């Protein structure tokens, strides 16, 4: 039982770490937490002229 719990826990940890690394834009998250005057502007665009 203990081995199963450890294996599941490890698997969740790996998936969570991979998700946070691949899918979370940390620059945006950190920028959103800066005071308004210090934030970088978020500029929207689409891949077209």
């Amino acid at each position: 039982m203990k081995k199963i719990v450890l294996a599941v826990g490890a698997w969740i940890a790996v998936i969570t770490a991979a998700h946070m690394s691949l899918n979370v834009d940390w620059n945006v998250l950190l920028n959103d937490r800066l005071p308004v005057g210090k934030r970088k502007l978020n500029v929207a665009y689409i891949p077209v002229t």
Partner: protein
Amino acid sequence: MFQGFPEIKEALMSNKMQAGFMVAPMAIALRAQGVPIKIVYLGHRYGSAVVVRKDGPVKTFADLKGKLVAIPSRFSDERLILFRAMKVHGMKAGDFKMVEMAPPDVAGALAAKAIDAFSMGEPYPSQAEMGGFGRVLFHAREYWPDYTSCVLVVRQDVIDNRPDAVQVLVDGIARSGLWLENPSKKLNRRNHAADFVGRYYFRQDPRLLRWALTNPLDRVLYEPLTPYKKDFELIVSLMRETGVLDRYIEFEEYVDVRFAEGAMTQTEWRYEPGDDRAE
């Protein structure tokens, strides 16, 4: 990166994005509806085309009668250019049907014969040409000298509270434009820009952007990017004529020219392909 202009509009209105590139008529319409944004600069000049199937029945503009043409939005210069061409060819609204489609979908739709033509910005005309199934019927400049399409809009609260940040943004775009338009280095720099924009921003094949930026070199221009009153008065007039704007709107109401004026003394980036950083 977004996939359509309506999503950019929503992101700006909800303050998820503080600035964005969108088609000029959409920015004007939003401002006319009271959305607190202003146009501060252009994204480029030219760079839109009407494309038909290479082996299809449409050989001239008049052949579009009864056909289905995709446009990015009813609030787009790509729609207005069709009306300008219609006028030249003695056609009227309703002679062909227009359908709104997200820009990344149009080349595939043309190849699959789901549409007969599209009016769109680059690199989608290039995509159809490169793919061998599309042919440019005409470039926007043929019916609209000084054509503009995408503009940079900024939320009014950002303009009011952080004008320095807006100026830095506009200065950067101005410097990039000058860098791309350097007469003696244009080809090499555009090839380099296609490479890094394709890889890191547009997530598109750099060969496609190389085609769009260099075939020919004036297919898309990045200078001058100052928003001129005469260009926008024409857009407003066409919008009213074609039923997507219900009142006249003063240029000063939807454009703030001070950032473009502030960028006029800028010089191109000091950067050559291979350098570590731009200054």
